[in-house]
């Protein structure tokens, strides 16, 4: 089966003039600029998956007949496609339901297996919640966890990492790319330090796999968590790379028929595995060109915003950053209020005004971004289907909304009068 049209209709970007959408009466979908949350599936991925729902529906673990064999062949091809993108052997790839499960399995599985000898894990305060929450649970089981701070640019200090490692440390878990600010941790250096100390190195690569070159051998990575839906593949599938030499052992979280080398029981979802594999293969072929294109779009957007709006701050390092991410604080304009003014753009806010806690992003707080500035931040994600016209339109809409809201902001007014906001005694509420 083939799709009739190769052009994806993501946010109407490729065909309709974005500026035209605002005035149209029919409800148009907003421009999608939240590629770190999820990505639309690439139609080529869907094409690869479709035969495995109805025609080739076999259980890949059925050893007795052709239905099983063809499903198994598809799954093994996908496994190799995933392995090839990170320089791994296909026997080192375990399919999971997604990066959250992979992170749970890597951390809990390793910790429990080696608990008689070692009981300490080192991770970072800006990790994804599924790493931090798993670590909290391991602490309840009696493990010790060190949460490394990050510098103002979002990157860890390698000397601090070295000092955190003890003879009881079993694993260092540092995310490859941060989901909010897109910064890339120095994986090769971290891997070298871990190898020197005889400590396993796990990286949550959900935001890195398929976006930046990764090589598990050059980077001395022992475990790597992978997600399907961040790279134009399907939701509900991910993988965990588990090194064979030197061997990493795990206690499984899901027990049953012993699939996936006993690390993860359960019948593999053939179409989803095929989708992840195809997405990885496309990324391998197109990563370099795509990164270049995205970087141009991102820089174009960034320059447009910065040249027309004062007091906008970039969160996270600009150099060590994936090309498809920006995280900006628009001082004196609250993020959620801003989002309401740009309803035809789908972006993400660092403000947490919607949640009961009223706490802004813990990632931005970890960088030392003031709470008030953290409330004014937006995450803007660019991806495979983002067009130049969309980027220009989005930048102009944001500029317009920020200008309007600043005119309405008492903080902007105070700042214009030269009053230091920190000198005011604000009431807590």
């Amino acid at each position, binding site marked *: 089966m083939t799709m009739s049209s190769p052009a994806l209709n993501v946010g109407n970007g490729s065909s309709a003039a974005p500026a035209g959408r605002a005035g149209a009466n029919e409800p148009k979908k907003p421009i999608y600029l939240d590629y770190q949350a999820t990505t639309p599936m690439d139609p080529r991925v869907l094409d690869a998956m479709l035969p495995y729902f109805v025609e080739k529906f076999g259980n890949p673990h059925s050893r007795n007949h052709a239905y099983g064999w063809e499903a198994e062949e598809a799954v093994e091809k996908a496994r190799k496609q995933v392995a090839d993108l990170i320089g791994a052997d296909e026997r080192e790839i375990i399919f999971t339901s997604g990066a959250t499960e992979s992170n749970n399995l890597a951390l809990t599985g390793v910790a429990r297996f080696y608990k008689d000898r070692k009981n300490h894990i080192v991770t970072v305060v800006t990790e994804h919640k599924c790493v931090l929450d798993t670590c909290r649970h391991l602490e309840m089981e009696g493990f010790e966890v060190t949460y490394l701070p990050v510098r103002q640019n979002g990157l860890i200090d390698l000397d601090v990492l070295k000092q955190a490692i003890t003879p009881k440390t079993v694993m260092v878990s540092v995310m490859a790319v941060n989901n909010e600010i897109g910064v890339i941790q120095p994986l090769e250096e971290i891997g070298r330090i871990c190898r020197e100390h005889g400590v396993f190195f796990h990286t949550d690569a959900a935001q890195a796999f398929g976006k930046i070159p990764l090589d598990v051998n050059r980077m001395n990575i022992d475990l790597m968590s992978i997600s399907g839906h961040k790279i134009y593949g399907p939701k509900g599938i991910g993988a965990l790379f588990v090194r064979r030499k030197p061997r990493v052992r795990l206690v499984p979280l899901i027990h049953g028929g012993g699939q996936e080398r006993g690390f993860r029981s359960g019948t593999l979802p053939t179409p989803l595995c095929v989708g992840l594999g195809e997405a990885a293969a496309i990324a391998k072929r197109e990563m370099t060109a795509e990164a270049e294109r995205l970087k141009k779009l991102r820089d174009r957007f960034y320059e447009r915003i910065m040249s027309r709006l004062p007091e906008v701050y970039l969160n996270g390092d600009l150099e060590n950053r994936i090309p498809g991410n920006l995280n900006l604080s628009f001082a*004196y*304009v*609250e*993020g*959620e*209020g801003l989002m*309401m*003014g740009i309803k035809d753009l789908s972006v993400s806010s660092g*403000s947490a*005004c*919607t*949640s*009961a806690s*009223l706490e*802004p992003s813990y990632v931005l707080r970890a960088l030392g971004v*003031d*709470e*008030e500035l953290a*409330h004014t931040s937006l995450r803007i994600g660019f991806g495979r289907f983002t067009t130049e016209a969309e980027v220009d339109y989005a930048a102009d809409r944001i500029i317009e909304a920020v200008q309007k809201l600043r*005119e*309405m*902001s*008492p*903080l*902007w*007014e105070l700042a214009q009068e030269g009053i230091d*906001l920190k000198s*005011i005694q*604000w*009431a*807590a*509420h």
Partner: protein
Amino acid sequence: MYSDKVIDHYENPRNVGSLDKNDPNVGTGLVGAPACGDVMKLQIKVGPNGVIEDAKFKTFGCGSAIASSSLVTEWVKGKTLEEAAAIKNTDIAQHLALPPVKIHCSVLAEDAIKAAIEDYRRKHGGQQAPAKAQA
């Protein structure tokens, strides 16, 4: 998640702006905190008859916070200070159909009215009270 009324006030905010905070007939209330993601400035101008002639606001916050403050500038105009002080956050929340997580926006708007009235009374009462005490 936003009601039509919130969207209307957000898109067409009433009475955005500032009055001269040094004018003795102007009361200014500045409530909330930048670190909490909401700051409202509400100003009232009180006529010689004790009735609020004008009201202006500026708000840093979400759509519900902007709508709550915009709404109260409409409500306080033409009211006496006593009537304005009687505006309850529940009235604001109900009128705008605020969801539970946004109730604090209406609380802040009520606080802003009270703070503006208090500021006005301080400007006036502050002069009158000692005079009475001496009499």
